[in-house]
């Protein structure tokens, strides 16, 4: 059995959908950040697989950018989560809708 590029792409699509559904359904901020990571890495997987399929180094290069952005996003996101949790124990993101219009 040959593992073709479409396998990777299918796996990426499944991972992305899991991340998206998790983001939309869960209310725990920590879980939501993990879901975002899942979606980002699903995209990374498509970059890498298509990059090797097409012989283009640009795909792998993009992954590094995405990783850097994801890392900084997690730093900020976790800091926000910690700050919120200190103030209100067990808060969900829906409890934080005070900035609504």
């Amino acid at each position: 059995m040959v593992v073709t590029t479409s396998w990777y792409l299918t796996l990426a699509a499944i991972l992305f959908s899991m991340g998206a559904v998790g983001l939309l359904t869960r209310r725990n901020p920590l879980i939501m950040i993990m879901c975002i990571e899942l979606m980002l890495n699903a995209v990374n997987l498509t970059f890498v697989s298509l990059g090797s399929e097409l012989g283009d180094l640009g795909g792998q290069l993009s992954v590094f950018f995405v990783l850097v952005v994801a890392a900084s996003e997690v730093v900020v996101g976790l800091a926000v989560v910690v700050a919120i949790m200190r103030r209100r124990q067990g808060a969900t993101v829906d409890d934080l809708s005070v900035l609504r219009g």
Partner: protein
Amino acid sequence: MLDLVWLVPAFPLAGFLILTFGGRRLGEPTAGWLATGAMAGSFLATAGAFYDLAGRDLHDRRSVTTLFEWVPAGDLTVDVGFLADPLSLTMCLFVTGVGALIHLYSIGYMHGDADFRRFFAYLNLFAFAMLMLVLGDNLLLTFLGWEGVGACSYLLISFWFTDEANASAGKKAFITNRIGDWGFMLAIFMTFATFGTVAYVDVLDTTAAGTVATSTATFIALMLFVGAIGKSAQFPLFLWLPDAMAGPTPVSALIHAATMVTSGIYLLTRVNPIIADAADWVPTLIAWTGAGTALFAATIAVAQRDIKKVLAYSTISQLGYMFLAVGCGAYVAAVFHMITHAFFKALLFLGSGSVIHGMDGDQDMAHYGGLRRLMPVTAGTFVIGWLAIAGVPPFAGFWSKDEILAYAWNESPLLWAVGLVTAVLTAFYMTRLVILTFFGRHRYADPRPDEVEEAWASAIAVAEEAVVAAAAALAAAVTASEAATDEPDVAEAVVAARAAHEAAVLERDGIVASAGERPELPALALYGAPDIGPVADRLPDQVATRSDHHPHESPWTMGLPLVVLAVLSVLGGLIQLPFSTATKRLEGWLEPTLFGNEVHLSVGTGTLWVLAAVAVAGGAVGILVAVAAYLQRRVDHRAFEQPILADAWRFDRLVSNFMGGPGRAGFEATANFDSTVVDGAVESVATMVKAEARLLRRFHNGLVRTYAAGVGVGAVGLVVWFLSRTSF
């Protein structure tokens, strides 16, 4: 010395600053002497600059001293600089000279006033603004001074602001002047748009070279004329000047007679090349406005009883003469009359102030009369001022007025006729003023109409009380007789009480009847004490007190300026005698500033002699008629004092009614348009944005997952859209 010309306005400015921030130690009379010293210093600086300039060649007599750049704004750069040329220095000489005398006079006049220091601070500030107006080397700096003198005029008219009338007189002056200032501002804008600069030197040289379109010059000249009308109180904007007399008399002399009100004539003389380039009807309009105002104001002055009102209308009338001269192209004659008028009108105002001071603030000439014995210095100098303004040779006013009339004849005999009639009226009303004030019967202690009114009221009240008392006595007697019917004494007492009551009623009815029939008291009892009938012994105490107290002569600080101004009013004509070019000193001196725009008389010497003789004869007629009416009782003076004249042809009321009626409706319609249409447009835009926002805020619910869903749906939508456009 010419580069030190900035000292001229610097002295009064320093005086103002010291007086404002100097604290309470500068009280009376230190503050007055300080202010007077500042003006004297300014006068000396002017004199120095004057001699420096006079020593130069004829065509080198123009010096611009720039202190610093004031407004650097793109193409527009305006400097604070001083233009010293014959015209501005002539103005400065009499502004500072007459100003210093009036400052000195004020020390005596304002004696005992609680706000002594504030008064002198304002006077110095005024002098500074006036000198900036005159010396400024561009239109904008002149405008700064123009507004400055307006503000000082407002502050000084309402100097005694606790009185409602004074405060509103100040407001009236300020608001009326805004109309003129509007014209001035438009002229400045147009000048900048045309020439790219507002500096006099560039503007006037360019205009004199004849490169300006007639329509542009017409517009600028017309707008400057509107400004001049406001500041110099010409028809129809003269309304504020008579009310401006609410200020202290030195203010009336300095600001509303000698200096500020002449700045309109100064401005028009300054820009004479623009007027020369304007359409022909502009000078004609100026001349007729001046002549019309001169005649109009002179007719009003005839019937005024307030001494300062007479002088105020006289000032308007004399300013009209100056506009007449400007309109006829006789700029030298206008400046000449401006100088002599500054001398004799300042003298007359200060003299009237001395009279008012001696009369304890009473300004009604009906209460004067015979004051020449009590105030000899004031009377003597006032008579000189009277002869000068009435055009009696060889006093100063004769020469300047005669020159204007000659140029008016040169322009049009009709203008000359209006000027001549005005001259006759001037001689008449000034003679009337002098006779009512200084000659004839001493009317100071006469009972005044309101006091006689009071006496009648008290007589009626006393008679009424007697009736009530007699009625009470009668009632008591009747009660007593009913208690003891058989005693004859009691019955007799009732009869006596009834008779007394009837007598009291009769007397009361008599007094009430004669009160109803009594003759009306004349305002001016010229030839004998008024007959006030049976209530003579009931007059209020103040009438008796008045006859013990006499008007008094003023202190020397007030007398000295009067004497100096009287000498100047006699000799003022010497600066411009019409006999030869050599005696026309003022004309030769001003020539460099007039760019050859001075009109030359085309009438012969013989005609000029005849014109002068007619003018003198006219003045004599005016004087003689006034003498016949007010001193010799050959003519009834009431024939001249028509109520409509005393009411200033009801012009003031006409304007008030117009502004209060259609004017007010118009303003309200405008305000309504603003609040409904203009504000409505703005507000409905705001309402629309608010309604839109109310719809959109629902999507901003603060739930992060909703936003994420939005992003997701949007992304899917985009992908679907791209796929649908792609053909596989």
